[in-house]
């Protein structure tokens, strides 16, 4: 069953089109990754699904409710962890959680127990009565995820959940996030521009300049760029290349003293190669395509580099437009 369905949504801010006719669906209890560079339209799409923005045209449904006309029903079904922390820094962890539980009308009888469970879940029981001011970035994110789950939503939105975290906290947070669908029967909708983090997703949609340019499982997307690449260093590269051509029909090219071949299933190919020309091989390594390569292939640009700056320009324009036009 599809818990989210987006039908041909467009969102314009003045003459900037932040989201340009996108359509996609998200399966219940899966992890859905919405990828793209800064300014591609990820946050705008999330804001529409979270009822914070109305689309210029098109429809979005979440848990069977229309995101622009049934905002209350949609809001009850979702939890959100924003890019920037939305905790009250002058309150304690427990107070932030209690505030949330009351806001979402968690019954009094259950409130205390759910707050305690959330603290335990975030691993913050011993810091429950400390002000958020004193928390590290990783602790705040864990608390925000736990807070987003207090009212038992159907969908949890995570907008760049690991932005600004150190590698150790990032790894910890992912471990924590990937367990959620099984433990809580919840769908995760996440955005990120760290491609390697998207490997945990069941389904991925890649968005660039407001349009979805590819979607599928991480594996199927990686097939788009061809297969694995095997690099060999041998005592006689020319001879090895000839043999590979003759025996396997593999086209080998040479670069920096190594020959490399492209093949869909590198892992099962290596043993046969070694069997045939093993005595001449000095070293062998294999590279799997990454989602970064997918992005590179689809857009002709790497996700993190120069387009980042261009994307930030769009982002700034949209922000200043919203500053002028939406008071709220």
């Amino acid at each position, binding site marked *: 069953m599809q818990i989210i369905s987006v039908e041909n949504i467009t969102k314009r801010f003045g003459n900037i089109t932040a989201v340009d006719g996108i359509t996609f669906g998200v399966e219940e209890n899966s992890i859905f990754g919405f990828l793209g560079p800064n300014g591609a339209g990820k946050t705008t799409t999330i804001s529409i699904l979270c009822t*914070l923005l109305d689309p210029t045209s098109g429809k979005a449904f979440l848990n069977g409710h229309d995101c622009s006309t049934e905002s209350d029903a949609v809001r009850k079904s979702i939890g959100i962890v924003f890019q920037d922390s939305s905790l009250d820094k002058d309150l304690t962890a427990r107070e932030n959680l209690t505030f949330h539980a009351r806001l979402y009308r968690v019954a009094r009888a259950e409130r205390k127990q759910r707050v305690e469970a959330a603290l335990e879940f975030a691993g913050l029981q011993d810091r429950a009565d400390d002000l958020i001011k004193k928390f590290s970035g990783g602790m705040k994110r864990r608390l925000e995820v736990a807070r987003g789950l207090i009212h038992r939503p159907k969908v949890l939105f995570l907008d760049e959940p690991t932005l600004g975290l150190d590698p150790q906290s990032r790894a910890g947070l992912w471990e924590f996030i990937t367990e959620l669908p099984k433990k809580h029967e919840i769908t995760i909708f996440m955005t990120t521009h760290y491609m390697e983090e998207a490997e945990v997703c069941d389904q991925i949609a890649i968005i660039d300049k407001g349009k979805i340019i590819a979607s599928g499982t991480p594996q199927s997307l990686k097939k788009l760029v061809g297969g694995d690449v095997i690099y060999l260093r041998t005592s006689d590269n020319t001879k090895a290349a000839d043999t590979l051509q003759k025996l396997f029909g593999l086209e080998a090219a040479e670069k920096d003293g190594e020959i490399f071949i492209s093949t869909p299933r590198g892992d099962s190919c290596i043993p046969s190669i070694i069997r045939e020309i093993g005595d001449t091989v000095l070293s062998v390594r294999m590279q799997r395509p990454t989602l970064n390569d997918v992005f590179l292939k689809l857009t002709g640009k790497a996700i993190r580099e120069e387009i980042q700056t261009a994307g930030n320009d769009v982002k700034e324009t949209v922000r200043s437009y919203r500053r002028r036009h939406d008071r709220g």
Partner: protein
Amino acid sequence: MIEANAVYVIVARELKKFVRERTRLVSTIARPLVWLFLVGGGMSRMIPASDGISYMQFIFPGILGMTILFSSIFSSISIIWDKEFGFMKEILVAPISRFSIVVGKATSGMVLSTLQAVVILAFYPLLGLKIGLAEVAGIILVSAILSFAISSLGIVLASFYDSYESFSVIMNFIVMPMFFLSGAMYPVKLMPDVLRFFTKINPLTYGIDAIKHLSLPQGAGVMGTDFPFLLDLAVILASAVIFVTVGGKSFERKG
């Protein structure tokens, strides 16, 4: 639609934070006392008492108005902080109506400002004022209505700004003129026509005038009241309704 749970949690949060911030507590109480005793005390040596009212007694209602003005605006301007630091998003995506958020914020401002006005009000015996119990209750009620109106005005102002640089703009171009053009420091009767016009469109003027009715001896010449008591009440009640409605509208807009 107003959800009671939303109003309650928003007010509870503001109260909790207010009690926790000792410096804010001290400074909001200290400011009116400094004005009352240092400015009022100094000026009363130059300005003779008229019709049995000393200058310090005359400015007492104005100082209560000042306490309410600053505290209410400050309380509502915290919306800008909430936007800047992200907490507003947590409230905006909750399943509650925008109007509840506005009523919650205005009620927080009302509770905090009225509490502070009560603290300042407790100084009246030191000024030689004789105020009966019914009048004290009346002053507290007027303070509550006025606080709600000005807090709602603050919400409307806050909806136009989203960075804290705008705070000084609001303070210098709206709050200070509102204070000086309210009959707090000098009688409205003595003002030139132009200034009197601005005084008459300022809701704070009517709140302070209502408190003058309840705290100063009646029929007291130039230092006495400027408008009928019922008009004062009508204006502050109407401002409360108008500002909270406009505040609600300004929050309901989506991008």
